[in-house]
C-alpha cells in the first residue's frame, strides 16, 4: 500500500527498540520474519530473548510463508482510543500463521461482518509512516 498520511498518522506505533525494532525493520524491507530457535527449530512470536521450550539464546529471523487463517477477532464499535475514532466499526484480528504463531493484525479487504474464524488470509504490508510498516492481511 502506498502511504499518503505521513504527517497526520496519529495511531499508536511500536517502539523502535530492542527485538520489536528488529521485527519491524524486516517488515519495512517487505519481509515478515519470525524468530526461529536455533536449538529446537521452534517458531515463536512475540519476539523473545530466549526459547521457552529448550532454553536456547540462539535464534535466526526466518521468513514466514505469509499465509495464515483468522483465529479470532473482535468488532470494535465504540472506539476506546481517540486515534481510532474515525475507523469504527473496525476489527482487530488474531491470525494464526502456517508456522503456528499468532499475531494481532487486520484484514484490509474484509469488512468486520464478513470475517469468519478459519478464513484464509495472506500477507499485505501497510506502510503507515515513512518509518513504520505494519504486517496486515488480505483474503487469500
Amino acid at each position, binding site marked *: 500500500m502506498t502511504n499518503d498520511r505521513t504527517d497526520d498518522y496519529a495511531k499508536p506505533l511500536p517502539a523502535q527498540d530492542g527485538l520489536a525494532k528488529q521485527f519491524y525493520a524486516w517488515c519495512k524491507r517487505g519481509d515478515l520474519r519470525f524468530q526461529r530457535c536455533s536449538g529446537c527449530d521452534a517458531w515463536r512470536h512475540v519476539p523473545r530473548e530466549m526459547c521457552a521450550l529448550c532454553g536456547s539464546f540462539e535464534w535466526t529471523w526466518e521468513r514466514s510463508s505469509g499465509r495464515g487463517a483468522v483465529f479470532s477477532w473482535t468488532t470494535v464499535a465504540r472506539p476506546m482510543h481517540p486515534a481510532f475514532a474515525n475507523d469504527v466499526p473496525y476489527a*482487530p484480528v488474531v491470525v494464526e500463521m502456517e508456522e503456528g504463531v499468532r499475531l*494481532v493484525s*487486520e484484514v484490509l479487504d474484509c469488512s468486520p461482518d464478513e470475517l469468519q474464524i478459519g478464513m484464509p488470509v495472506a500477507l499485505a504490508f501497510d506502510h503507515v509512516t515513512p518509518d513504520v510498516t505494519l504486517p496486515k492481511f488480505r483474503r487469500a
Partner: protein
Amino acid sequence: MRDNACIVGIGESAYTRDAESPASVLSNQLRAATNAIADAGLETSRIDCLIPSQYGPSTEELAANLGIASLRFATTVHMGGAAAVTSVQTAAMAVTSGYADYALVVTGWNGYSATRTRNVLASNTSVIPGGDIARDYYMPYGLTVPAQWYALIARRHMHEFGTTAEQLGAIALAMRRHAQLNGRAVMRERAMTIEDYLASPVIAHPYRLFDCCLETDGAAAVVVTSAERAHDLAQPPVRVLGAASAHPYPADDITNRRDIFETGLTRAAPRAFAMADIDPADVDFAQIYDCFTFEVLQQIEEAGFCARGEGGAFVEGGRIELGGDLPVNTHGGLLSEAHVLGMNHVVEAVRQLRGGCGERQVPDAEVGVVTGWGDFGDGSIAVLGR
C-alpha cells in the same frame, strides 16, 4: 491450611459515580480501612501488616494517615483484578507464618471520576504486565483495552461451544437482579430485561454495553488474622479454607497460548479446592470477578463448577441467581454493584458467611468461593467457610 487464617473485619466506602465532587482515592481507602478495623473490634495500632493495591496510595501514605507507626510486613500484589484475592492469600500467609499478626488489605480507585482504564492504557501500557507487547504488537491495530482483548477469547468460545448472546445476557441479568436487593449497589432501581440487554450498544463484539463492568469510585478493605487471634474479636471469623493464585502461559501475551481458554484460575482452582478439601459441587455461592459477562462464564468453567463448554447452559434458567444452584455475585458484582477491583466480592462473601445479607442472604451458607481475574488472565481464588 490446618491453622486457617480468618477474615475478621470488612469495610467499604460509599460506591459512587459523582464527577462533581468525588472523594479522593486516599479518603475512600481510609474510610474502607477504618470501617474494616472497627468492624473487627481492633485498635488500629494492632495492624502490623499492610497490603495496599497497585492502583492508589502507597503503604507509607496509608500508614501515615491511619497512625500505624510500626509495620512488620508490607507488600503489594501486581495482578490487576486478580490482586484483591491474591492479597487476601498473601495476608493469610503472613498471619499464619508468624511474620505478622493483623493484616489490613485495602483496594480502591476512582474508576469513574479519575482513572478511566481506556485513557490510562492509551497513554501508558506499562500498567499491565505485558505492556511492551501490547504497545508493540496490539495497540497499532486498535486493540487497546480489556473489553477488546477478552472479546477475542469470548468469540473463540462462541465458535467452539456455541455460546450465545442470550447466555451472556443471563449473567448480566443475574447481577442486575441481585443489585436490586443491595442498597449499596450503584444499579439499584435500574432493573434490566433481556430485551434491554440485547438492545444495548455494541462496545467490542460480542460485548455490548451491559456485558461490561461499571466504572465507579470507591474502596473496600478486609482485616485478616490467625484463627487463634480471631476468636477474641468482635465478629464471627470467616475462615480462609484454601487460596491459590496462578498465571496463564504466557501471561504477557494473550494471543499465543496453545490453549486459549487456559487462565490462571485453571491452575489455581484445583489447588484451592484441594487445600480446603471442598468439592466445587459443595459450594453455596460464588463471587466471581465479573469484569465482563463472558469472564464469569469462563471462570465458572475453569474453576470446575462445570466442564469447559458447558458454561453457557450452566448460567441459564436462573441457575446463578439467588435461589439457583450456585448464586453468583449476590451483591451485584462489578457489573451492577460497583467496580472496586474485586474486594467488594471478598466483602460480600464474608457478609454471606456471617449471615448478614438480609433479603439477598443465601440460606445456611457455609462455604463460598471468591475469584479474581486480572490483566491477560491472571487468576486467584479463595475458598471461604464459616
